[in-house]
């Protein structure tokens, strides 16, 4: 697909998502909102993986921190403004991400993957045992806060959907801007050769750490939105499954910026569809991931390669052109 065609496709899909409340029922609107949340997680993972080649297996830490901060804000700290809650969620998460980033930025990709996983698991076991934040039961009774200056009631599914959509689009635009900025250029340079960047006078670790914190902030937005969407935050939000899903979405979606969000929505719908037919839906999902993983190291072209592989199986004799 060339550039303008893919832009057109992304715009069409974006429009379809924005118009969702006009042709979907309340339950399905909730599904799209959930898909958008996963899209944000995927975006935050995408940023580190594509610009810096750093695979994070610990974004659950940032997602969960955002969710817990959002939950605590309304249940314990008496916050009744969604923007303030978002600020708290992102602020707390970025503050916690700073030391993690400082350590992780010194490592290469495998080390980065392991250390982020370790931090996420540490936070999960902390949340499991800490009674003050609900322990293994999690935080219940999270009500959606007011919309501050906006004249809307976020308790309704449609208004919440549009709020989620707005947050997603803003994060998307932010990451898009960062990618084409000088800072984004430096990050790509670091991905290409840390040694060269040091020799040019760049303090590589600082840039990597800043990128990790930025990515953590986006994951925190997802966490906040998720907690208010399902009105619940639990240690499961900090589990490796969350991190894995973010990483898988990015792998499925390829290297462009918008597809991770669309894939996240599609997958959320797919999961719902499959899980209403069979109890073993997780196995089916697993199968899909395996197929994608097997269909080549060149993840960018995963969908096309799957199609090619399937066609080869169905049609083993190569067709000769007349």
């Amino acid at each position, binding site marked *: 697909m060339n550039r303008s065609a893919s832009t057109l496709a992304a715009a069409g899909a974006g429009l379809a998502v924005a118009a969702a409340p006009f042709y979907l029922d309340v339950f399905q609107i909730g599904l799209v909102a959930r898909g958008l949340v996963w899209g944000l997680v995927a975006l935050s993972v995408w940023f580190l993986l594509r610009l810096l080649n750093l695979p994070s297996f610990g974004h659950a830490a940032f997602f969960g921190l955002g969710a817990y901060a959002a939950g605590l804000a309304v249940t314990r700290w008496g916050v009744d403004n969604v923007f303030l809650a978002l600020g708290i969620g992102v602020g707390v998460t970025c503050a916690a991400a700073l030391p993690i980033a400082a350590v992780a930025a010194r490592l290469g990709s495998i080390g980065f993957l392991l250390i982020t996983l370790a931090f996420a698991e540490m936070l999960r076991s902390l949340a499991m045992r800490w009674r003050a934040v609900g322990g293994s039961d999690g935080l219940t009774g999270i009500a959606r806060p007011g919309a501050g200056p906006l004249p809307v009631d976020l308790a309704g599914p449609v208004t919440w959907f549009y709020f989620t959509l707005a947050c997603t689009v803003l994060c998307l635009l932010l990451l898009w*801007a*960062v990618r*084409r*900025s*000088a*800072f*984004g*250029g*430096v990050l*790509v*340079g670091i*991905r*290409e*050769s840390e*040694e*060269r*960047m*040091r*020799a*040019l*006078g*760049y*303090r*590589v670790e600082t*840039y990597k750490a*800043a990128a990790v914190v*930025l990515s953590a902030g986006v994951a925190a937005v997802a966490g906040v939105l998720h907690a208010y969407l399902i009105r619940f935050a639990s240690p499961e939000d900090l589990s490796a499954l969350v991190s894995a899903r973010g990483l898988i979405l990015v792998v499925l979606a390829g290297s462009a910026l918008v597809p991770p969000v669309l894939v996240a929505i599609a997958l959320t719908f797919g999961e719902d569809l499959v899980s209403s037919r069979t109890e073993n839906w997780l196995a089916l999902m697993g199968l899909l991931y395996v197929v994608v993983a097997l269909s080549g190291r060149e993840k960018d072209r995963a969908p096309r390669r799957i199609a090619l592989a399937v066609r080869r199986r169905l049609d083993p004799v190569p067709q000769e052109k007349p």
Partner: protein
Amino acid sequence: MTAVLELDAVSKRIGGAYLNRDVSITVRQGERRALVGPNGAGKTTLMNMASGVLRPSEGRVRLLGRDVTSLPVHRRARLGLARTFQITSLLPAMTVAENLAIAVQATSRGRADPLRPWSRARAVWARVDELLERGGLTRIRDVPVGRLAYGEQRRVEIVIAVANPCSLILLDEPGAGLSSEETEELLSLVFGLDPRLAVLFVDHDLDLVFRLATHVTLLNFGEVVAEGTPAEVRAMPVLREIYLEVDADA
């Protein structure tokens, strides 16, 4: 003339073995000092200690009179030390222009601007085009560096290294993998930049070295065994002793 780089009795020890032992070298403004010696003589180790990749076990490193022994690579780079690597080290997925832009903006304030489009950093791109022109690279401006021929990559690397004002450049085997003519062309590119620029370079082509360098330091087994102008070093019997085998083999 002012000393730009001073290696003051530096040694590098790993376990009980010395990679470099008690090496003192001074590179002055405008000097083109060649570092020669057989394989394993400690030339690259010495370069790495000068640039900050390795820290000497003993001795001091001074840059423009300032003690930089404990400064990391990026800080020394900002003080005016440029370098190329023995194995070409560029940013392969990025174009020649982008590679240069990264280098040019390394000292500018906008280098970490996370929101303004990079393409709008006009000062940076104007300087990039100027450098492309001077290095004869305009033709390959938008080609990803990874797709360039090897000789072109080495040329890009040199232009990148000197993209910012620097007082010293370290060239570790700029001619590796190139013909003598190509190496000479590359070195003349560097030497023609600024008469005050101090150059410390490693090369195996002795003819070339004696022709182009203003000073020569001969290393063997990690120690300095001879030093002087090309004519002086060429006349020393120790050079013949060290290189006899190499020449006999060739």
